[in-house]
């Protein structure tokens, strides 16, 4: 081994050890548990059962219900957040150029912990204690049941969009402001109207950012846990059970660690496949 390579190995060793200890070991343990019948009573002596846990997970209607919920939630919230974030970034850009402090105000929802956000909505939307139903009753003598089985999905989607649209907004604002002014000036000299300039020049230049924003928001939405769990839990009949909630309940509530780990591995596999796909799409877009 030549000297630079040895130096590289020495320099990389702490990081490699760190990753092995903090990522490698838990991953290996998850695989072992995923292939075993394991409960809290048998944590130290798991019984190998092959792919039984994976078969059980894939044959469980609850798993597919959770997967469908996460997929719908991830896609819908990501699209809504990006659309709103893009609109706000473009619409408010001239104002923000003059009043930079507005950005700080707009990103306030992101500062709140998701679990706290769930608890806050639990209070805000409560028919007898919450301000929203209070004023709806005062003005219209009616307040919709925000958290019943029919409306709860819409409610959690709106809550998620309100909290995380500022993240997409920040990304789009940065991308929008990074477009060279000369490009706009040249287009203006050629007589390009503002709407056409947006569609044909600005939006295409922001497409890589749009991919990144969509991808990050989708992943965040797909793995949602805190705000939904603190707001409505798993939902009546499991209607708000996301993949993360499914895994949490299988692990800690039902003590079925093998099944929980099998579901987690499947979730990891799906996320990895999506990541690879997204990277390819981003490269192509770039």
């Amino acid at each position, binding site marked *: 081994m030549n000297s630079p390579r040895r130096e590289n190995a020495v320099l990389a060793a702490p990081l490699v050890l760190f990753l092995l200890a903090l990522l490698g070991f838990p991953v290996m343990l998850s695989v072992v548990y995923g292939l075993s019948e394991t409960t809290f009573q048998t944590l130290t002596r798991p019984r190998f059962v092959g792919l039984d846990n994976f078969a059980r997970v894939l044959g469980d209607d609850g798993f597919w219900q959770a997967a469908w919920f996460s997929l719908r939630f991830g896609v819908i919230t990501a699209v809504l957040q990006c659309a709103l974030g893009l609109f706000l970034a473009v619409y408010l850009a001239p104002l923000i150029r003059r009043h930079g402090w507005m950005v700080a105000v707009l990103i306030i929802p992101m500062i709140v912990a998701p679990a706290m956000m769930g608890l806050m909505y639990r209070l805000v939307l409560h028919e007898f204690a919450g301000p929203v139903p209070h004023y709806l009753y005062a003005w219209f003598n009616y307040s919709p049941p925000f958290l019943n089985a029919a409306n709860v999905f819409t409610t959690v989607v709106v809550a998620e969009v309100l909290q995380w649209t500022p993240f997409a907004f920040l990304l789009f604002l940065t991308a929008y402001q990074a477009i060279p002014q000369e490009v706009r000036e040249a287009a203006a000299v050629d007589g390009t109207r503002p709407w056409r300039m947006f569609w044909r020049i600005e939006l295409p230049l922001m497409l890589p950012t749009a991919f990144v924003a969509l991808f990050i928001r989708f992943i965040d939405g797909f793995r949602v846990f805190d705000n939904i769990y603190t*707001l409505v839990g798993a939902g009546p009949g499991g209607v708000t059970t996301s993949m993360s909630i499914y895994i949490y309940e299988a692990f800690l509530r039902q003590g079925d660690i093998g099944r929980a780990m099998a579901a987690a591995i499947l979730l990891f596999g799906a996320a990895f496949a999506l990541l690879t796909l997204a990277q390819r799409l981003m490269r192509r877009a770039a």
Partner: protein
Amino acid sequence: MNLRTLLGCTAAAAFAAVAAQAEVTVLGWPGGPEETALRAVTEIYNAQPGLAEENRVELLFTSRDGFFDKLQVDLAAGSTAFDVNLIATYSIGRYAPFMEPITLSDQAGTVFGDTVLSTMQFGGAQYGVPTDLSLHFLYFRQDLIDALMADPAAVTLYGDIAEQYLGERLAPKAPGEWTWQDFAANALYFSQSVNPASPTRYGTVIQMKNLLFNMMVFHSWPRSYGANWMDADGNITIDSPAYRTALEMAKMLYDAGATPPDSTSYEYAEANAAFSSGQVAAMIQWNAAASELMAAQPTTGTFAPPAGPEGRFTHIHGLGLGLNAAAENKDGAIAFLQWMSTEEAALAYARAGGAPGLATATAAQLAAERPDLVQVGEYASTYGFVMNGGTSENALSVYEAQAKEFTGYWAGTQDLDTAMANITAAMTDLLQ
């Protein structure tokens, strides 16, 4: 700092650590009257003359959030951070493999009574000393009932509504005489969706969130129709007319608008807020809510839950303290647990704000200071029940599975037959 000072500090720290290990560490239920009461009795215990220094009790509290999940992990990992830990009726079976049975003092049977002691038993062995008992009361607005019974036109309307929704004509009664049919009729009459002239928006509030504790609140209902989880031979008996009747009645009330439409997201706090607002006429709720609800609605009365064909029942479960199998000071821990089962400790615990389930004679000593405990003790011994399998290893999971299936039926995401088939399969898997 020179080497000698450093060594001195290290030795002092090591000594302190050994001393700490020699004490009895008790992991308690944090943040409520249980913590206050436990602190008070611990002071009394530690002040006993002749108590060895190594047997003094130290208390340890963590957050309530995810408490039992964390405890599960700690016990499974063989943690020695505590000698005595909190247990609850529905989790004894799950924790039993990591705990040791104990022998209580000779006074325990007299102080608590057999029903309350059974809330801390698993496989015929006593795994804990009961500290706090939870059961359910029927809370009702006495002013509304009085007004209803005094108005002949209202009584007629009440009968019409009962006939329309329940298939039989009923007359208003005092809540102490209610059956579940009367409870339902009262709930319908006091709901504006059924009776637009009702003084309250809803007749009742049923906690229908997909949460295991809500199943405990619900269980007094099917039990009074004869329901149980298993028969004497261990067969799963949940798919029974008793469960179906209670589930169908609850759904009928939900669909009729007799409980808030958001009830499928309601648990303890939401239900209390609804009742406290003055917009609910009656409800089934934990005994712990008594002071809060009575303060908000001073005309609130309490009684045991309504009766069914098989009698009147209230689901009981208790909190208690048990012995960690990995405890480093078992002798000291056992001595503390035995003392906690004496009359002296139970009375001190109650006076400090705890809610022990005391036998009638013991509770009578506190009648002036804690009249609520007299009622709790009386109801627990007269109407208290634990389902067959309610302390088993997977009891918690059974409640979880029921919560998912039953709330799905109430919310209309699945029919009753599907819910029954699913819960039967789940309970067969969990209990057999």
